[in-house]
């Protein structure tokens, strides 16, 4: 192997440790370069899709490092190494959906274990937690997470982790990850963070002390509403090994095609997120001024926001009259989506509990796409114009 061949070894891949220069590269550069120079034989700039389930062994006990594609696939391995690097973790695991990623992480726990979880949580995660509680006695303990003391009061000898989405879905609450990492570690527990809404571009939880990061990569990482996928990143060799064991043992792995699509999605993630962020800011300002809107829930960062209409009865005509923005479940894609959590993402949460948690019937969640912001605002304006006429008509009766 000459000097040139060494240069072909990617900075995030293979046993070769990355040097100082590659480590100090900005996240934008890492995203774009993901998978490049990963195939020294051909020099392919875009990595190949390895649709091979099995790999030839040269002899007994001799492996190329790849045996059976569930255990390790070259295309998936690039994605996994890439996300681990982007999140500042030690190992990445690509799963067949965001929920599969959460299931993978929940498989770390034993009967009797407890997790402290904020009230505001994606409905699918809530449903899976209920299942784990009913079936395995692995218990979610919910808290409003208003203060560290409030959370600490719920921690006991069985507490194994704090499981946090930040910002939360759909109420957009943010938590101080450093503070909660310290709290978790003080009690010998892990901090697990669902980083779907911010991605490593806006937030790197492991750098703030988290032990495990989860993504529904279907969202901003894939970014084109075309691939269903989940990612898990672990800090530390011991945790990585345990998660790796379950990943291979239960087999919720991501296919090679979808892995390649995520690599491709990551290459433009920073550009997309910049535009999502700029558009969301413009729309949040517009909604703040709109009199038919009572609250706008926006952290000031990223492409997600929620808002409440003054009356639940307006939700249906609002959604019906949208012309550009799509009324659909999911988020993080280039196309703008508005979701009605009450009947979509949180349909599985009992009514009282949903209302108690603030996911009221007037709440809409907006995944702001990367269309021209003016066009999105024009669509909202025409919807509110229609609503205003209805409001007047109602007043006339």
């Amino acid at each position, binding site marked *: 192997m000459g000097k*040139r061949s060494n240069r*072909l070894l990617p900075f995030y891949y293979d046993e070769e440790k990355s040097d100082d220069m590659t480590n100090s590269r900005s996240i934008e550069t890492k995203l774009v370069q993901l998978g*490049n*120079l990963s*195939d020294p*034989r*051909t*020099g*392919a*700039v*875009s*990595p*190949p*899709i*390895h*649709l*091979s*389930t*099995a*790999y*030839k*062994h*040269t002899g007994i006990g001799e*492996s*190329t*490092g*790849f045996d059976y594609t569930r255990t390790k696939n*070259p*295309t998936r391995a690039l994605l996994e190494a890439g996300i681990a690097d982007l999140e500042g973790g030690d190992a990445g695991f690509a799963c067949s959906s965001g929920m599969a990623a959460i299931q993978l992480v929940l498989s770390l726990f034993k009967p009797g274990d407890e997790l402290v979880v904020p009230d505001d949580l994606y409905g699918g995660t809530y449903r899976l937690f209920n299942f784990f509680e009913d079936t395995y006695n692995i218990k979610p303990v919910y808290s409003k997470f208003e203060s560290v003391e409030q959370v600490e009061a719920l921690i006991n000898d069985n507490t194994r982790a704090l499981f946090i989405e930040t910002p939360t879905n759909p109420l957009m609450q943010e938590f101080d990850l450093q503070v909660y990492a310290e709290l978790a570690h003080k009690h010998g527990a892990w901090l697990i963070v669902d980083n779907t809404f911010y991605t490593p571009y806006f937030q790197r939880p492991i750098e703030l002390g988290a032990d495990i990061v989860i993504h529904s990569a279907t969202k901003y990482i894939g970014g084109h509403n075309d691939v269903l996928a989940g990612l898990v990143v672990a800090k530390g060799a011991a945790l990585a090994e345990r998660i790796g064991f379950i990943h291979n043992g239960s087999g919720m792995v991501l296919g090679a095609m979808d892995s*390649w699509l995520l690599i491709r999605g990551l290459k433009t993630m920073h550009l997309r997120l910049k535009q999502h962020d700029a558009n969301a800011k413009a729309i949040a300002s517009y909604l703040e001024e709109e009199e038919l809107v009572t609250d706008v829930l926006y952290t000031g960062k990223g492409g997600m926001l929620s808002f409440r209409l003054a009356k639940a009865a307006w939700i249906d005509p609002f959604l019906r009259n949208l012309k550009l923005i799509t009324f659909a479940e999911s988020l993080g894609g280039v196309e703008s989506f508005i979701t009605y959590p009450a009947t979509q993402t949180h349909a599985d949460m009992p009514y009282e509990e949903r209302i108690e948690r603030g996911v009221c019937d007037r709440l809409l969640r907006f995944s702001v796409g990367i269309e021209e912001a003016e066009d999105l605002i024009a669509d909202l304006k025409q919807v509110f114009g229609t609503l205003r006429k209805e409001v007047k008509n109602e007043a006339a009766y």
Partner: protein
Amino acid sequence: MKQHIETSLIHAGVRDGYENKKGAVNVPMYVSSTFHQESIDEFGEYDYARSGNPTRDALEKAVAELEGGVRAHAFSSGIAAVSAALMLLSQGDHLVITEDVYGGTYRFVSKVLPRFGISHTFVDFTDLAAVEAAITPATKLLYMETPSNPTLGITDIRGVVALAKQYNCLTFLDNTFMTPLHQRPLELGVDVVIHSATKFLSGHSDIIAGLTVTADEKLGQDLYFIQNSFGNILGVQDCFTLLQNIKTTDVRFSRSAESAQKIAEFLATNPVVEQVYYPGLASHPGYEIHHSQSTSAGAVLSFRLPSYGAAKALVEAMKIPVFAVSLGGVESILSYPAKMSHAAMEPEERAKRGITDGLLRFSVGLEHVDDLIADFAQALEVVGAKVL
């Protein structure tokens, strides 16, 4: 030890180190348009994916091996392969081509080639004397399709090759209907074999693809020059799909051909059917020649009903086959050549070739043959009640 082609079908794609250092059983899909180069004065095997792509390369090498050639080229459609091969001709050249040719080839030869100053004569290739009579001093190519589409006419490949040698012409043969498993034109002296790989080689009615194969390195390089200059290459995903599907060509084709024989025999005894065109029937005029150069009668047959009305009634009464253009899929496909594969041909040209208003083509799929025959039986009964 020389391997059987059935074995090569399975392993040809990953020979020669395509599995690279990872040992993958399948060739990876190189979805990369460009390739990093090691130095300024020495480029690697791949630089730009139009010029060469590892996945396409694996396919091309596999197909060359299967046809017993030295170079193969993969194109974005069957007609892209046909047109690329025909671009080996130059202004002023003339070709003699079988009149019973696929409609798309007919269109290219009769409507596009003349604009480049390349002339042609359509001839009945079942008549070698007629082929020889059509050869002029400008003739550079004899173009065969055997069995032909849609009337399954048989060309004497050896006879045409001998004429080509005598008159210093190239020979092309469209081998789509037989696949390299059952007809090996390069071994009979043909210069370029052409495939619509959309058909039996891919076999799942899934991709559009074409192939050329040559036994001569120089001719292969000339075709590569055209492929790279025109850019009518096959995309990576389709190359991968084709490589995977080629592995089952033998089992698919064998079963379909077995069924085709039974269906042809069944149709031949039905009073509503005026004629069955299938080289597996001893009554077929090309039966002996076909079996001297091929090892299967194939999986496509045509049959003639008395009228347009009868054909229409049959199409409407058949329940199993897809009524569609194309052939060679796992699904049986019933086609109406006059309005489908040969719609590009003028009515009088069609009539000359026996593509009558009552002619139907049947590509036999992998359904159970008894079900297909039962479907024909009930449909022909309906037709019989209407027309007899």
